[in-house]
């Protein structure tokens, strides 16, 4: 089977939820919808405190090209526009909506059976207006990614159904339960890019999804499924391209430089919703899982729902729960409390117990070379850490610290429990700050 060089095999942890059907979370009483949920420029609020809004109504307008609007995920009254704790940014402004008596949707939602005949620009416009950002977790505005400059010839589109993060099963369940929407969305993506070839990458631990997607594409032209061996971080964009196409994205470059483009299966489904029915992105699938959750589930939740409400619906936390992570255990972000909202990039809520929550103290590096062996970017994590510890950031840059994709494989494998990727992350931040200062 095809794969990429490097990588690790962490405990998969998918059995908590892989067999559980996606359930719909009952409408929460309050949602907090951050103005910024994507990479790029923020958004400008269009609503005021006290105003009534319908579900799907635009709450804030994109500011600039690399930005997407945000929409009301429930109908109700604007409780305020306040500074709240943000699961990624730490703090951020959000629109708070108190649920009204009944659920009311905006009337802009319409089914467009001839959606595939739409001009490409109209498709992109609908995607942007729906507020789409990559649902795999990186949350880069989708319409921007689907607008490569004319000098970049893209010949193949990849669909990412790898879901290599341990514990997460949201993409897996979506592939099982709604393959039609995913493939229709992928067709739209291929149409926008003008490519004839589309490949869906799925890891071999999701055999059922492979079968269902294969069946779904049996009558589609130019689509194929590639089964990949289980290895983290295969779902990282550059690693997926390497695994499927054996092409390497140039250091510092983008996939379009080598004629490829990757979208996540969840994003493809949202693309279909946006183009076919003009439905904005107001909900997403979240895997609520881990040894710290009483009843792990895959849930469809409105954007802006507080973690607390979701966890309550899953039976609450176990006695020994100790760490709450937004995302997976390898790249997810630890949350100090449950008063944070689900955002567009929230693929999971993972709760670890006391035993798994603590990281051991750093021991001396014994030069075993495992971090070097597993690094998918072919870096020297242990050397980079040493340079960062001594604040020799320029030298670290010469050793390609900026090429680190922060997958965490080095820290995971290190027998000395060294905080390798954590140090590298710090080094990258320092270099970016220096660049900013230098203008």
């Amino acid at each position, binding site marked *: 089977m095809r794969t990429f060089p490097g990588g690790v095999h962490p405990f998969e942890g998918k059995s908590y939820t892989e067999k559980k059907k996606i359930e719909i979370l009952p409408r929460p009483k*309050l949602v907090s919808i951050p103005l910024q949920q994507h990479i790029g420029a923020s958004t400008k609020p269009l609503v005021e405190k006290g105003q009534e809004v319908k579900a799907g109504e635009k709450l804030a307008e994109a500011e600039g090209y690399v930005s997407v609007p945000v929409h009301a995920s429930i109908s109700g009254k604007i409780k305020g526009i306040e500074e709240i704790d943000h699961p990624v940014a730490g703090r951020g402004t959000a629109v708070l909506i108190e649920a009204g008596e009944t659920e009311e949707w905006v009337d802009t939602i319409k089914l467009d059976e001839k959606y595939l005949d739409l001009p490409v620009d109209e498709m992109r416009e609908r995607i942007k207006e729906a507020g789409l950002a990559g649902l795999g977790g990186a949350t880069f505005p989708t319409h921007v990614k689907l607008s490569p400059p004319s000098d970049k010839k893209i010949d193949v589109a990849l669909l990412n159904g790898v879901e290599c993060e341990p514990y997460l099963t949201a993409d897996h369940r979506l592939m099982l339960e709604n393959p039609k929407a995913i493939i229709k969305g992928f067709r739209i993506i291929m149409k926008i890019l003008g490519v004839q070839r589309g490949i869906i990458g799925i890891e071999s631990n999701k055999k059922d999804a492979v079968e269902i997607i294969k069946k779904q594409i049996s009558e589609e032209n130019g689509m194929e499924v590639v089964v990949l061996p289980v290895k983290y971080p295969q779902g990282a964009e*550059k690693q997926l391209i390497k695994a499927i196409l054996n092409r390497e994205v140039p*250091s510092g470059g983008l996939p379009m430089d080598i004629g490829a483009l990757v979208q996540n299966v969840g994003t493809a489904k949202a693309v279909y919703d946006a183009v076919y029915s003009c439905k904005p992105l107001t909900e997403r699938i979240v895997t609520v899982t881990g040894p710290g959750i009483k009843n792990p589930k895959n849930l469809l939740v409105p954007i802006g729902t507080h973690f607390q409400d979701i966890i309550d619906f899953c039976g609450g936390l176990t006695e020994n729960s100790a*760490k709450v992570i937004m995302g997976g255990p390898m790249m997810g972000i*630890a949350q100090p409390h449950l008063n944070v909202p689900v955002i567009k990039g929230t693929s999971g809520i993972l709760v670890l117990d006391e035993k798994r*929550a603590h990281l051991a103290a750093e*021991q001396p590096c*014994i030069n075993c*070379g495992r971090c070097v062996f597993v690094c998918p970017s072919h870096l020297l994590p242990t050397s980079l850490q040493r340079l960062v510890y001594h604040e020799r950031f320029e030298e670290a840059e010469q050793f390609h610290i900026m090429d680190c994709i922060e997958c965490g494989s080095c820290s995971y494998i290190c027998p000395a429990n060294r905080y390798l990727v954590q140090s590298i992350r710090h080094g990258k931040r320092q270099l970016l700050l220096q660049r900013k200062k230098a203008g």
Partner: protein
Amino acid sequence: MTDAPQKLYISSSSPHIRDKDSIPKIMWTVNIALLPALLMAYYFFGPKALWITLLAVLAAVVTEAVIHKLAKKPLRIQDGSAVITGILLSFNLPASAPWWMPVVGSVFAIAIVKELFGGLGNNILNPALAARAFLLASWPVEMTASWVAPREGTVSGINGITSATPLNLLKQSAKIITNPENFEPSQVQAAQNAIANLSSSYTNLLIGNVGGCIGETSVIALLIGSLIMFYRHAISWHIPFTYVGTVAVFSWIFGGSEGFFTGNWIFHILSGGLILGAFYMATDMVSSPVGHRGQVIFGIGCGILTVTIRIWGGYPEGVSYAIILMNLAVPLIDRYTVPSVFGEVKNK
């Protein structure tokens, strides 16, 4: 939302999970892997072999504990790395060594070679090998003069030849054969016979029924131990295989007294401390290159130096000096084997 949160959960930077392997697990794996060879040493050389090993281990662990205590560092003798140093040092001593020798060697290995350079992970040389070099330079007679014959065998591993270890025999014989005019005809004849009979010692060399340092003689026991290390990923093939392979090729090309390509490479692989050195000492993670390409270069370098010392050098055996010299070259090797970053090749 604005209410004060009731409970704060643990926060840390990702990744939030770790592989289960740890430094103590790696080190104790190596210690367990050394046990078969220790048992064989006990069988062939008697309880003295065990006493020397025990003394070396005790001295190493106590030295490390005292230094950590004095330096007010957290005590980390339990990680098993000082135990490895003790066992490996004793494995590099003759069974006839006086009791203070493993003690002095271990103190030197831990205090000077390891802790003075910063402790675990920071030593430039393999502590056990550097200590052996120190002992050899300081007490050459005790280190090399009197080899204990193994139970039910001879020092040379060949019937009737009792004077020298296998490599010593090879060295002396080669010297006689290449300069026959300086020796009696009977001596030349004996040397030729010895060379011709080398293959009769293969079985003895394999099981360790020959003279030599405590832990180096039993090739079989050392290889069985290495399987444990391979299984537990404590070593990779890169260093030991390239090291042994290079010794085979080079000793075959240059090791014969009848010209190129006549050397007895099987004898070179089986005798001396090559297997101990290649699988247990050259593979010391701290003092070997970090990347696989560097490890291959390191292994080849060790092999070339070992054969060079064995054939043209002053000593019959060259494993320990070869590894020490290559230890010194590790920073250089690491510098020139930096992997090209993902996506770099096509960018140029």
